[in-house]
């Protein structure tokens, strides 16, 4: 029997959320990683705030990208190892919607908390207080796009032996546009310019990702499970 797609997605999302909150320490890892990366830059670059402010968009976005890559490993791996993903694929329900729900939850648990805690790192990088909302908004939107693109590579590397480095190698070139527009939005926010143009483009990429990425991820997961 085929259940309505949205109901399937809701159930998968509820399951993933419940499982994630049973292991809260794993939730904090990407966030801690992001904070440590942001700390390394003042130590290696300069403690001078005015120069750090110039580097802030790059630091925030490279940190967000790296920590999102770190979290991507957990997106499908546990479910693939214990056979859950195989059951999903065999259940006769839409695998696309299930994976879309998993990706959304992944963003809720990694991308969104990272965006919300980014102001802490941003203050340390000399970002003015007035720019904080824009920094949070750009990282939240871009983080969602990163999760969507990452879901494809996470699906593709399911069959690979050493997934970790390969996952980064596949995701990074695909993430270039997100990084460019996201960092530009943050840069504009810091210097007090209008952030709408890069945010629209980031939004367009996210819409494209929502439309196509779950389909591609489902096809990739099916290949990995064969």
């Amino acid at each position, binding site marked *: 029997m085929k259940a309505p797609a949205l109901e399937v997605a809701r159930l998968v999302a509820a399951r993933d959320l419940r499982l994630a909150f049973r292991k809260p320490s794993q939730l904090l890892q990407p966030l801690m990683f992001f904070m440590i990366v942001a700390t390394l830059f003042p130590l290696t670059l300069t403690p001078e705030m005015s120069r750090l402010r110039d580097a802030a968009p790059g630091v925030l976005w490279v940190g967000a990208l790296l920590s999102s890559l770190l979290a991507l490993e957990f997106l499908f791996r546990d479910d693939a190892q214990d056979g859950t993903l195989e059951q999903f694929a065999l259940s006769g329900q839409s695998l696309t919607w299930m994976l879309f729900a998993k990706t959304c939850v992944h963003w809720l648990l990694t991308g969104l908390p990272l965006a919300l805690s980014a102001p802490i790192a941003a203050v340390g990088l000399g970002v003015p207080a007035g720019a904080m909302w824009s920094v949070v908004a750009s990282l939240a939107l871009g983080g969602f796009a990163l999760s969507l693109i990452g879901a*494809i*590579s996470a699906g*593709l*590397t399911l*069959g*690979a*032996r*050493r*997934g970790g480095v*390969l996952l980064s*190698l*596949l995701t*990074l*070139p*695909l993430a*270039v*546009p997100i990084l*460019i*527009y996201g960092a*530009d939005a943050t840069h504009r926010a810091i210097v007090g310019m209008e952030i709408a143009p890069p945010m629209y*483009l980031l939004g367009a*990429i996210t819409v494209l990702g929502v439309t*196509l990425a779950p389909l*591609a991820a489902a*096809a*990739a997961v099916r*290949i*990995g499970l*064969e």
Partner: protein
Amino acid sequence: MATWTWFHRLASPPHVYGFARRWTPWIGGAAAVCMVVALYGGLVLAPEDYQQKDAFRMVYVHAPAAWLSLMIYTTMAVAAAVGLIWRMKVAHAAAAACAPVGAWFTVAALGTGMLWGKPMWGAYWVWDPRLTAELVLLFLYLGYMGLRAGIEDPNKADKASAMLAVVGVINVPIIKYSVEWWNSLHQTPTVMKMGKPSMDTAMLWPLLLMFVAFALYFAAVLLIRLRAELLRRERNASWVREVVT
């Protein structure tokens, strides 16, 4: 029905192997002839550039290599899509054969660009949008080959890397435009227009002929690599035993 038999024959490894063996010398020979003529035209007959002097002659290697790096990626993605849609093993083998050639052409385009950039711009590397896009393309090739090498089951490796090639082809234009947009914000330190927009005919024909030569060279190398790939994949098939012994 008869119109489709050529397509069905493409799915048969021994047929494609035979085709590749017959055509490689002809295509390779044509590539060699074109290349010699184009080199003579480009290095000897074409006049000096009034600004860049003889250094502009790098374009005869650089531009065709850059052009092919994109064309090979497209070829690879089309072959990968054909392999996914019609489950054609030969198409997957062709896509696998494309990747290293394309990666080397990308390296050649970047390398010759750097050699040209040093005397012209005063630096081996600047973050010009086209250079950056080419570098990202190299990473895409490396990711494709890495994924193929990382998956042990050949069938799975074929399909997963084919998916990646198709995803990449959707992403390539987005990357290209985003990189161009990105650079328009950061003022570029040097003027990077390559010569005048219109080229003298004496300079242009060797360039176009070199395009043809490079494309033919790619076709010849692809056929050789495809033969090796087919032999390796079909090593247990009876036709391979007949061909090899």
